[in-house]
Structures are given as C-alpha cells and as structure tokens.
C-alpha cells in the first residue's frame, strides 16, 4: 500500500492537469460560437491558470518526494542485504568456534605422534581462515564486513587465496558505507577477474586497509597478468575495458567516489603484482 500511497496522488494531479488543459482547449475553441448560453471555462481562465500552476508545483514537489523515497528504499535494501551478509559472517564465526575443539584434538594427536611439520601445515591452513574472518570483523564497519565476507566466499569458490590485512579502523573514513562498498567491491571484482581469466599458479588477492598520517590507504593487490602502461593511462576513463563483455564503468565509479572525497588513486603493475591504491583523507 505504501507504493500506492506514493503513486496515486501524483497520478491524480497529473491527469487532473491534463483534464483542465483539455477542457480549456475545448472552451477556447467554442468561445467564438454561441453554442453554450451559460458560457464556458474561458470566463474562469485566470483561476484555472492559477489551479494549473498550483498543480504543476505540487507535482514537481511530489516527484522530488518520490525520488527521495526511491533513494531511501535503495539504501534500505542495501542495508538489509548487508545485514543478511553479516548474519552469514556470524554463522561462519560460530562454525569456526564450534570446530575449534576438533582442531585442538587434531593438533594434540599430531603432537602425540611428534608430527611437527604436519601440525605446522595444519595450523597454517586454519589460521589463514580465522585471520581473514578476524580482519574482516576488525574493520569496524558492519557494511564493509558484510561485503568482505561475501567477497571471501566468492574468492574461495574460485580457488583464489584471499587475504585481508587490516591495521586501521574505518570509523573515521568520510565515505558512505554504500559508496565504500561500491569502491571496494569494484576493486575486488577486478582483482578476482585478473587472477581467474588467465591460468596462473596460486592466484592471490590481497586487501590491505592501512593508515598513513591523516589518510587511509585501501590497497587491492592481485598476482594476475600485468597491465600495460597504455591501459593504465586510460583505465579510469568511462567505457574503457580490456574485456568486450564489460561496460568499463567499474573503475570510473571508483575514481568518482575517491575524487568526491578529495582522495587520489594510484596503480602500479609489474610481473609480480598489480596494486590499486585509494588514498582517502580522514574526517
């Protein structure tokens, strides 16, 4: 019913304007004849124009209200989506805690048979998973945590090693959560594509959230193929993409968001890794 409550008044106003205009149109046409002895709407032309003006102003106000409502609805949907992802993150944490006892028992078993190398490898695997979850939680932004959790699952499904290193809380970042997610989401998606499109050994994507003085540095590093200098020069242009099926808007959006908050972007790419860095000043 909420949607109806928004739409019905605007339909009424717009069609009422149309009706008045059609009636005035006919009235002007018949004004020259004596067909209607009681007169026509042309005798009320000034009040009618005033009504039309009021209706036009009201319809503009209502359109603005509707656009605000649409924006709020989109934000609420994004929040709801984040909440769902957060719930999944909590589920992962519960699972990890639940599995902890099994891991302890396994480690104990290894130690009993003095299999030190095996226990080291075993613990390394477990700690990597726990480290990602811990780093995701410690960003101090539930929306970003939710996104990173989803991205971690995505990387895992592509057999890409995903590392998150967080040395700074995102509490003081001036970027809105929805925009920050768009920024990180685009950078991580690009990194994932870079490592999956070519068959490289041990594909890796790393996100580093750090702080230098009064600015944040968000780095997304991948070990995919290097980007040529000519491509780097055009990479933030709208519509530029190295892939045919892409619109080439992702990095352009990233640039728009970073520049909106007075930040800068930097790319370095060589045989070993490609690093996208966003520098954003603290509040």
């Amino acid at each position: 019913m909420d949607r109806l409550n928004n739409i019905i008044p605007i339909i009424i106003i717009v069609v009422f304007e149309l009706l008045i205009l059609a009636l005035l149109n006919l009235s002007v046409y018949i004004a020259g004849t004596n067909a209607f002895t009681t007169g026509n709407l042309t005798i009320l032309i000034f009040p009618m124009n005033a009504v039309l003006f009021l209706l036009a102003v009201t319809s503009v106000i209502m359109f603005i209200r509707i656009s605000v409502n649409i924006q709020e609805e989109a934000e609420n949907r994004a929040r709801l989506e984040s909440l769902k992802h957060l719930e999944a993150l909590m589920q992962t944490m519960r699972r990890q805690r639940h599995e902890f006892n099994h891991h302890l028992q396994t480690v104990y078993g290894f130690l009993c048979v003095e299999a030190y190398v095996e226990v080291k490898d075993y613990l390394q695997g477990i700690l990597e998973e726990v480290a990602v979850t811990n780093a995701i939680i410690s960003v101090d932004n539930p929306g970003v945590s939710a996104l990173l959790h989803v991205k971690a699952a995505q990387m895992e499904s592509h057999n890409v090693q995903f590392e998150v290193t967080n040395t700074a809380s995102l509490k003081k970042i001036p970027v809105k959560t929805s925009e920050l997610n768009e920024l990180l989401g685009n950078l991580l998606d690009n990194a994932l594509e870079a490592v999956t499109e070519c068959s490289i050994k041990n594909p890796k994507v790393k996100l580093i959230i750090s702080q230098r003085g009064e600015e944040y540095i968000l780095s997304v590093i991948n070990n995919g193929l290097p980007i040529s200098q000519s491509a780097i020069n055009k990479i933030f242009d709208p519509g530029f993409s190295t892939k045919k099926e892409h619109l080439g808007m992702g990095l352009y959006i990233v640039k728009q968001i970073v520049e909106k908050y007075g930040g800068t972007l930097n790319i370095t790419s060589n045989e070993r890794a490609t690093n996208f860095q966003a520098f954003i000043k603290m509040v």
Partner: protein
Amino acid sequence: MDTMPLITVLLISLPEEILLTAVGLQLFGIKLSFRRLVLIGALQAMVSYCIRLLPLAFGIHTMLQIPIFALVIWLIIRVPYLIALTCILVSASFYMVIDATLGPLLLHLTGIPLEQVLATPSLQILFFLPQGLIVFFIVLLLYFYDLKIIDLGSYYSNRCKGRFEWID
C-alpha cells in the same frame, strides 16, 4: 443550460459512461462483469443528465461529474474512493483529450456549425460515434493485452461476489 433528450442519454451518455468505467478500471487492474459496468454506466448517465440541467458554464459539468462518478463506483464495487477517483480521472482525461482533438476536427471536416450539432440529437449521436469507437477500440486493446498502469489485483481479493476486499 445544456439539456439532453432521452435518446442521447441512451445512445451517447450510457455507452460513454460504460466505456469510461471500463477504461479506468482496466487501467488499474480491476475487472468487472458487464452487468456491473452497465449498472455503473446507467447510474452515471442519470447523474450526468441531472447535472446538465444545472445552469453551469461548459466544462464545470465535467469537473462536477467526476467526483460523483467516483462515488457511484465506490458505491457499487466498494473500491476505496481515492482509487475510484483516480480510475475515473485517468479515463475522463483521456476521453477529454480525444474529444478536444476529434470534435473540432469533425466540425471542420463536415462544416456543420456546433450550434446545429448541439440542437440535433441525431447529429450528436453521429459526432459521438467516431470517438466512441476509438474508446471502444482502446477498451478492447486494454482487455486483450491486459494493459494496466498499476495492477491493483495484488491489493484486493474479490471473494465477496464482485465487491472488493482490500488487503493491507
């Protein structure tokens, strides 16, 4: 005063009101039986006849008829008044636009003065035919392709014999 002979009430006003109701309600996803459409049309034709007896300027009649038309729809099918008003405003506006376009065109093409058309019921019926047919064709298109502005079907259930129960 713009009085109507009974023949024009039956051959112009009645089909006109039925078509307006059909267009308005179909555009909002409300489907009615033909019997109910005729009932609404007949009641509104009577209202229209009475209103035209009032000494009002051309155009005021139309504006006065619309809220009453919505009231008639509300009485018959119990759809919320605001929805009924919206349905009828939409169809009346479309109809007025067709009227404002075709009326002067027909008068120009035939060369018959407006005074003569208004004074002769047979001419009134002949002049109504083209726009009546256009609206009828629109109704057929709307029903055939099931076109709607908003589908209110998701907001109501018609469990109680054609009357609408609103689901909030």
